Protein backbone atom coordinates (compact mmCIF):
# COMPACT_ATOMS: atom_id res chain seq x y z
CA UNK A 1 0.00 0.00 0.00
CA UNK A 2 2.90 2.34 0.48
CA UNK A 3 3.87 1.41 -3.05
CA UNK A 4 2.61 3.99 -5.50
CA UNK A 5 2.03 2.56 -8.97
CA UNK A 6 2.66 3.78 -12.48
CA UNK A 7 0.64 6.51 -14.06
CA UNK A 8 -0.41 8.32 -10.91
CA UNK A 9 2.33 10.75 -10.01
CA UNK A 10 3.38 13.66 -12.19
CA UNK A 11 6.60 13.60 -14.17
CA UNK A 12 8.56 16.15 -12.08
CA UNK A 13 7.85 14.18 -8.91
CA UNK A 14 9.01 10.96 -10.57
CA UNK A 15 12.16 12.65 -11.84
CA UNK A 16 13.01 14.07 -8.42
CA UNK A 17 12.42 10.63 -6.90
CA UNK A 18 14.85 8.98 -9.27
CA UNK A 19 17.48 11.68 -8.84
CA UNK A 20 17.41 11.55 -5.04
CA UNK A 21 17.44 7.75 -5.09
CA UNK A 22 20.40 7.45 -7.45
CA UNK A 23 22.36 10.07 -5.51
CA UNK A 24 21.67 8.35 -2.19
CA UNK A 25 22.60 4.92 -3.55
CA UNK A 26 25.87 6.32 -4.85
CA UNK A 27 26.51 8.06 -1.53
CA UNK A 28 25.72 4.91 0.47
CA UNK A 29 27.99 2.74 -1.65
CA UNK A 30 30.79 5.30 -1.55
CA UNK A 31 30.46 5.66 2.20
CA UNK A 32 30.52 1.95 2.93
CA UNK A 33 33.41 1.42 0.54
CA UNK A 34 35.36 4.06 2.37
CA UNK A 35 34.69 2.22 5.60
CA UNK A 36 36.04 -0.84 3.84
CA UNK A 37 33.67 -3.42 5.28
CA UNK A 38 31.84 -4.28 2.07
CA UNK A 39 32.84 -7.95 2.05
CA UNK A 40 31.41 -8.56 5.49
CA UNK A 41 28.29 -6.61 4.66
CA UNK A 42 27.28 -8.49 1.50
CA UNK A 43 25.75 -11.64 3.07
CA UNK A 44 23.91 -9.56 5.66
CA UNK A 45 22.77 -7.19 2.93
CA UNK A 46 21.26 -9.96 0.84
CA UNK A 47 19.57 -11.71 3.76
CA UNK A 48 17.97 -8.50 5.01
CA UNK A 49 16.93 -7.54 1.48
CA UNK A 50 15.31 -10.96 1.11
CA UNK A 51 13.35 -10.39 4.32
CA UNK A 52 12.26 -6.97 3.10
CA UNK A 53 11.27 -8.43 -0.27
CA UNK A 54 9.08 -11.13 1.25
CA UNK A 55 7.61 -8.98 4.05
CA UNK A 56 5.40 -7.22 1.54
CA UNK A 57 3.50 -10.48 1.05
CA UNK A 58 2.36 -10.59 4.67
CA UNK A 59 -1.05 -9.00 4.48
CA UNK A 60 -3.00 -7.75 7.45
CA UNK A 61 -6.72 -7.19 6.88
CA UNK A 62 -7.76 -3.72 8.03
CA UNK A 63 -11.33 -2.61 7.51
CA UNK A 64 -12.34 -2.97 3.88
CA UNK A 65 -8.80 -3.44 2.67
CA UNK A 66 -5.57 -5.10 3.65
CA UNK A 67 -2.16 -3.66 4.24
CA UNK A 68 1.17 -5.40 4.18
CA UNK A 69 4.32 -5.20 6.24
CA UNK A 70 7.11 -2.91 5.09
CA UNK A 71 10.01 -3.73 7.44
CA UNK A 72 12.01 -0.71 6.34
CA UNK A 73 12.83 -0.02 9.98
CA UNK A 74 14.44 -3.43 10.34
CA UNK A 75 16.45 -2.85 7.18
CA UNK A 76 17.60 0.52 8.49
CA UNK A 77 18.62 -0.76 11.91
CA UNK A 78 20.55 -3.76 10.59
CA UNK A 79 22.15 -2.31 7.47
CA UNK A 80 22.72 1.34 8.32
CA UNK A 81 23.74 3.37 5.30
CA UNK A 82 23.42 0.34 3.02
CA UNK A 83 19.71 0.14 3.78
CA UNK A 84 18.99 2.56 0.96
CA UNK A 85 20.44 0.40 -1.84
CA UNK A 86 18.94 -2.68 -0.15
CA UNK A 87 15.46 -1.17 -0.24
CA UNK A 88 16.03 -0.16 -3.84
CA UNK A 89 16.88 -3.74 -4.84
CA UNK A 90 13.95 -5.09 -2.83
CA UNK A 91 11.54 -2.68 -4.50
CA UNK A 92 12.82 -3.51 -7.99
CA UNK A 93 12.16 -7.19 -7.32
CA UNK A 94 8.76 -6.46 -5.79
CA UNK A 95 7.76 -4.32 -8.77
CA UNK A 96 8.72 -6.91 -11.36
CA UNK A 97 7.74 -10.09 -9.55
CA UNK A 98 4.79 -9.11 -7.36
CA UNK A 99 3.49 -6.11 -9.26
CA UNK A 100 3.76 -3.99 -6.11
CA UNK A 101 4.02 -0.43 -7.26
CA UNK A 102 5.28 0.42 -10.68
CA UNK A 103 8.55 0.64 -12.51
CA UNK A 104 8.69 4.37 -13.17
CA UNK A 105 7.92 5.07 -9.52
CA UNK A 106 10.72 2.94 -8.07
CA UNK A 107 12.68 6.14 -7.44
CA UNK A 108 9.87 7.75 -5.47
CA UNK A 109 9.01 4.55 -3.63
CA UNK A 110 12.62 3.99 -2.62
CA UNK A 111 12.71 7.53 -1.31
CA UNK A 112 9.48 6.98 0.62
CA UNK A 113 10.79 3.89 2.37
CA UNK A 114 14.54 4.40 2.25
CA UNK A 115 14.87 7.79 3.90
CA UNK A 116 12.78 6.66 6.91
CA UNK A 117 15.05 3.60 7.09
CA UNK A 118 18.07 5.89 7.28
CA UNK A 119 16.35 7.97 9.94
CA UNK A 120 15.55 4.79 11.91
CA UNK A 121 19.22 3.90 11.74
CA UNK A 122 20.11 7.37 13.00
CA UNK A 123 17.72 7.02 15.93
CA UNK A 124 19.07 3.59 16.76
CA UNK A 125 22.67 4.70 16.56
CA UNK A 126 22.08 7.73 18.75
CA UNK A 127 20.03 5.73 21.19
CA UNK A 128 22.48 2.90 21.65
CA UNK A 129 25.22 5.33 22.58
CA UNK A 130 23.16 6.35 25.56
CA UNK A 131 22.09 2.98 26.87
CA UNK A 132 24.04 0.03 28.07
CA UNK A 133 23.32 -3.50 26.97
CA UNK A 134 20.10 -3.80 28.86
CA UNK A 135 17.76 -5.93 26.79
CA UNK A 136 14.43 -4.23 27.65
CA UNK A 137 15.83 -0.84 26.77
CA UNK A 138 17.25 -2.15 23.52
CA UNK A 139 13.87 -3.67 22.76
CA UNK A 140 12.25 -0.28 23.26
CA UNK A 141 14.85 1.45 21.16
CA UNK A 142 14.34 -1.01 18.31
CA UNK A 143 10.58 -0.66 18.60
CA UNK A 144 10.83 3.12 18.40
CA UNK A 145 13.13 2.93 15.37
CA UNK A 146 10.80 0.44 13.64
CA UNK A 147 7.68 2.43 14.41
CA UNK A 148 9.20 5.73 13.29
CA UNK A 149 10.37 4.17 10.03
CA UNK A 150 6.88 2.97 9.09
CA UNK A 151 5.21 6.16 10.25
CA UNK A 152 7.54 8.28 8.17
CA UNK A 153 7.21 5.98 5.15
CA UNK A 154 3.44 6.33 5.30
CA UNK A 155 3.64 10.09 5.76
CA UNK A 156 6.08 10.42 2.86
CA UNK A 157 3.80 8.38 0.62
CA UNK A 158 0.81 10.47 1.69
CA UNK A 159 2.80 13.62 0.90
CA UNK A 160 3.63 12.27 -2.57
CA UNK A 161 -0.06 11.64 -3.20
CA UNK A 162 -0.90 15.13 -1.97
CA UNK A 163 1.30 16.60 -4.72
CA UNK A 164 -1.53 15.52 -7.02
CA UNK A 165 -4.02 17.87 -5.45
CA UNK A 166 -7.07 17.95 -3.24
CA UNK A 167 -8.83 14.92 -4.67
CA UNK A 168 -6.20 12.65 -3.18
CA UNK A 169 -6.49 14.16 0.28
CA UNK A 170 -8.87 11.52 1.59
CA UNK A 171 -6.83 8.73 0.01
CA UNK A 172 -3.79 10.04 1.84
CA UNK A 173 -5.78 10.18 5.07
CA UNK A 174 -7.04 6.62 4.58
CA UNK A 175 -3.49 5.50 3.92
CA UNK A 176 -2.31 6.87 7.24
CA UNK A 177 -5.25 5.45 9.22
CA UNK A 178 -4.99 1.96 7.72
CA UNK A 179 -1.32 1.77 8.57
CA UNK A 180 -1.69 2.28 12.29
CA UNK A 181 -1.77 -1.53 12.88
CA UNK A 182 1.30 -1.94 10.68
CA UNK A 183 3.16 0.64 12.77
CA UNK A 184 2.29 -1.30 15.93
CA UNK A 185 3.21 -4.70 14.46
CA UNK A 186 6.49 -3.52 13.02
CA UNK A 187 7.50 -1.77 16.22
CA UNK A 188 7.03 -5.08 17.93
CA UNK A 189 8.94 -7.03 15.25
CA UNK A 190 11.90 -4.67 15.10
CA UNK A 191 12.06 -4.42 18.89
CA UNK A 192 12.09 -8.20 19.22
CA UNK A 193 14.64 -8.73 16.47
CA UNK A 194 16.95 -6.10 17.98
CA UNK A 195 16.67 -7.61 21.46
CA UNK A 196 17.29 -11.09 20.05
CA UNK A 197 20.26 -10.07 17.93
CA UNK A 198 21.77 -8.09 20.78
CA UNK A 199 21.83 -11.27 22.82
CA UNK A 200 22.84 -13.73 20.13
CA UNK A 201 24.92 -11.84 17.62
CA UNK A 202 25.53 -8.22 18.60
CA UNK A 203 28.01 -7.72 15.73
CA UNK A 204 25.08 -7.72 13.30
CA UNK A 205 23.83 -4.54 14.91
CA UNK A 206 27.33 -3.11 15.18
CA UNK A 207 26.86 -3.13 18.92
CA UNK A 208 29.90 -3.02 21.09
CA UNK A 209 28.37 -4.70 24.07
CA UNK A 210 30.40 -4.38 27.21
CA UNK A 211 30.56 -7.70 28.93
Amino acid sequence: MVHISDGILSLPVLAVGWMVTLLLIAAALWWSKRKGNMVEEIPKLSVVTAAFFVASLIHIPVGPTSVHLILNGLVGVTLGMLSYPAIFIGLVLQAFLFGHGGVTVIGVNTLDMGIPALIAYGIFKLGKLNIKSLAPKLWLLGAIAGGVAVTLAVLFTAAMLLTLGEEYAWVAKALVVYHIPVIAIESFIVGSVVAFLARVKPELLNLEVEK
Partner: protein
Amino acid sequence: MKRIFIFSIILVLCLSTSVEAHRLHIIYKISEIEIQAYYAGGTPCRDANVKVYDSNGNLYIEGVTDDEGKFRFPPKTGVKEYKVVVEAVHMPGHKAETMINLTQETTTINTEIEMPLYSKVIAGFGYLSGLAGIAMIYAGWKMKEKNIKEKNKNRTK
Protein backbone atom coordinates in the same frame (compact mmCIF):
# COMPACT_ATOMS: atom_id res chain seq x y z
CA MET B 1 -56.60 -51.71 -50.02
CA LYS B 2 -56.95 -48.29 -51.59
CA ARG B 3 -58.42 -46.98 -48.40
CA ILE B 4 -55.47 -48.19 -46.38
CA PHE B 5 -53.10 -46.53 -48.82
CA ILE B 6 -54.79 -43.14 -48.51
CA PHE B 7 -54.95 -43.50 -44.78
CA SER B 8 -51.27 -44.23 -44.56
CA ILE B 9 -50.44 -41.18 -46.67
CA ILE B 10 -52.49 -39.01 -44.37
CA LEU B 11 -50.76 -40.58 -41.40
CA VAL B 12 -47.31 -39.90 -42.83
CA LEU B 13 -48.27 -36.30 -43.59
CA CYS B 14 -49.59 -35.83 -40.10
CA LEU B 15 -46.44 -37.24 -38.56
CA SER B 16 -44.15 -35.16 -40.68
CA THR B 17 -45.90 -31.89 -39.85
CA SER B 18 -45.86 -32.72 -36.20
CA VAL B 19 -42.09 -33.27 -36.37
CA GLU B 20 -41.70 -29.96 -38.15
CA ALA B 21 -43.54 -28.17 -35.33
CA HIS B 22 -41.05 -29.37 -32.74
CA ARG B 23 -37.91 -28.02 -34.38
CA LEU B 24 -35.81 -26.31 -31.74
CA HIS B 25 -34.43 -22.83 -32.31
CA ILE B 26 -31.92 -20.90 -30.35
CA ILE B 27 -31.28 -17.24 -30.63
CA TYR B 28 -28.65 -15.66 -28.42
CA LYS B 29 -27.73 -12.34 -26.98
CA ILE B 30 -24.79 -11.62 -24.75
CA SER B 31 -26.17 -9.50 -21.99
CA GLU B 32 -23.36 -9.34 -19.52
CA ILE B 33 -19.62 -9.07 -19.37
CA GLU B 34 -17.97 -10.07 -16.15
CA ILE B 35 -14.55 -8.98 -15.06
CA GLN B 36 -12.64 -9.95 -11.96
CA ALA B 37 -9.85 -7.99 -10.33
CA TYR B 38 -7.38 -9.61 -7.99
CA TYR B 39 -3.97 -8.93 -6.57
CA ALA B 40 -0.95 -11.04 -7.32
CA GLY B 41 -1.39 -14.12 -5.19
CA GLY B 42 -5.12 -14.32 -5.76
CA THR B 43 -6.62 -11.96 -3.18
CA PRO B 44 -9.73 -10.43 -4.75
CA CYS B 45 -9.62 -6.67 -5.14
CA ARG B 46 -12.76 -5.47 -3.34
CA ASP B 47 -14.48 -2.10 -3.60
CA ALA B 48 -12.24 -1.00 -6.41
CA ASN B 49 -13.37 1.65 -8.87
CA VAL B 50 -14.05 0.21 -12.32
CA LYS B 51 -14.30 2.37 -15.40
CA VAL B 52 -15.32 0.93 -18.75
CA TYR B 53 -14.50 2.85 -21.91
CA ASP B 54 -15.78 2.02 -25.39
CA SER B 55 -13.55 1.78 -28.44
CA ASN B 56 -13.73 5.55 -28.98
CA GLY B 57 -12.35 6.16 -25.55
CA ASN B 58 -15.60 7.50 -24.14
CA LEU B 59 -16.54 6.53 -20.61
CA TYR B 60 -19.38 4.02 -20.91
CA ILE B 61 -20.03 2.67 -17.43
CA GLU B 62 -18.41 2.97 -14.04
CA GLY B 63 -18.90 1.06 -10.84
CA VAL B 64 -17.35 -0.76 -7.93
CA THR B 65 -16.18 -4.36 -7.63
CA ASP B 66 -17.97 -6.72 -5.23
CA ASP B 67 -16.51 -8.90 -2.48
CA GLU B 68 -15.03 -11.32 -4.99
CA GLY B 69 -13.49 -8.50 -6.97
CA LYS B 70 -16.07 -8.98 -9.71
CA PHE B 71 -17.90 -6.39 -11.76
CA ARG B 72 -20.53 -7.01 -14.42
CA PHE B 73 -21.78 -4.73 -17.15
CA PRO B 74 -24.09 -5.09 -20.16
CA PRO B 75 -22.39 -4.60 -23.51
CA LYS B 76 -23.41 -1.61 -25.58
CA THR B 77 -25.03 -2.58 -28.86
CA GLY B 78 -22.60 -2.29 -31.73
CA VAL B 79 -19.56 -1.82 -29.54
CA LYS B 80 -17.21 -4.77 -29.68
CA GLU B 81 -14.21 -3.45 -27.84
CA TYR B 82 -13.94 -2.14 -24.33
CA LYS B 83 -11.15 -0.86 -22.17
CA VAL B 84 -11.59 -1.70 -18.51
CA VAL B 85 -9.62 0.25 -15.92
CA VAL B 86 -9.63 -0.89 -12.30
CA GLU B 87 -8.24 1.33 -9.59
CA ALA B 88 -8.07 0.11 -6.00
CA VAL B 89 -9.28 3.01 -3.89
CA HIS B 90 -8.07 1.68 -0.58
CA MET B 91 -4.69 0.92 -1.99
CA PRO B 92 -3.72 4.00 -3.93
CA GLY B 93 -1.09 2.90 -6.31
CA HIS B 94 -2.80 -0.25 -7.44
CA LYS B 95 -4.22 0.24 -10.89
CA ALA B 96 -4.68 -2.11 -13.82
CA GLU B 97 -6.29 -2.03 -17.20
CA THR B 98 -7.24 -4.56 -19.84
CA MET B 99 -8.87 -4.68 -23.27
CA ILE B 100 -11.96 -6.80 -23.90
CA ASN B 101 -12.68 -7.76 -27.47
CA LEU B 102 -16.05 -9.42 -28.08
CA THR B 103 -15.38 -10.29 -31.72
CA GLN B 104 -12.78 -12.83 -30.81
CA GLU B 105 -14.56 -16.15 -31.24
CA THR B 106 -12.20 -18.04 -29.02
CA THR B 107 -12.25 -17.64 -25.27
CA THR B 108 -12.53 -13.97 -24.60
CA ILE B 109 -11.41 -14.51 -21.05
CA ASN B 110 -7.93 -13.18 -20.93
CA THR B 111 -6.40 -15.91 -18.86
CA GLU B 112 -2.85 -14.85 -18.53
CA ILE B 113 -1.38 -17.80 -16.74
CA GLU B 114 0.34 -16.32 -13.76
CA MET B 115 3.38 -17.69 -12.08
CA PRO B 116 2.35 -19.02 -8.67
CA LEU B 117 3.42 -16.84 -5.79
CA TYR B 118 5.88 -19.27 -4.25
CA SER B 119 7.85 -19.48 -7.47
CA LYS B 120 8.00 -15.70 -7.59
CA VAL B 121 9.39 -15.68 -4.07
CA ILE B 122 11.97 -18.28 -5.03
CA ALA B 123 12.80 -16.27 -8.14
CA GLY B 124 13.33 -13.20 -5.96
CA PHE B 125 15.67 -15.10 -3.66
CA GLY B 126 17.48 -16.36 -6.72
CA TYR B 127 18.06 -12.85 -7.98
CA LEU B 128 19.26 -11.76 -4.56
CA SER B 129 21.72 -14.59 -4.17
CA GLY B 130 22.93 -13.95 -7.71
CA LEU B 131 23.49 -10.29 -6.90
CA ALA B 132 25.26 -11.24 -3.68
CA GLY B 133 27.44 -13.64 -5.64
CA ILE B 134 28.40 -10.98 -8.15
CA ALA B 135 29.17 -8.55 -5.34
CA MET B 136 31.30 -11.20 -3.64
CA ILE B 137 33.22 -11.90 -6.83
CA TYR B 138 33.84 -8.18 -7.24
CA ALA B 139 34.95 -7.82 -3.63
CA GLY B 140 37.20 -10.85 -3.87
CA TRP B 141 38.77 -9.55 -7.05
CA LYS B 142 39.43 -6.17 -5.39
CA MET B 143 41.05 -7.89 -2.41
CA LYS B 144 43.28 -9.95 -4.63
CA GLU B 145 44.36 -6.83 -6.48
CA LYS B 146 45.14 -5.15 -3.19
CA ASN B 147 47.19 -8.12 -2.01
CA ILE B 148 49.20 -8.19 -5.23
CA LYS B 149 49.90 -4.49 -4.91
CA GLU B 150 51.06 -4.91 -1.33
CA LYS B 151 53.30 -7.81 -2.30
CA ASN B 152 54.83 -5.74 -5.06
CA LYS B 153 55.42 -2.94 -2.62
CA ASN B 154 57.15 -5.28 -0.18
CA ARG B 155 59.30 -6.64 -2.98
CA THR B 156 60.48 -3.19 -4.05
CA LYS B 157 61.43 -2.48 -0.49
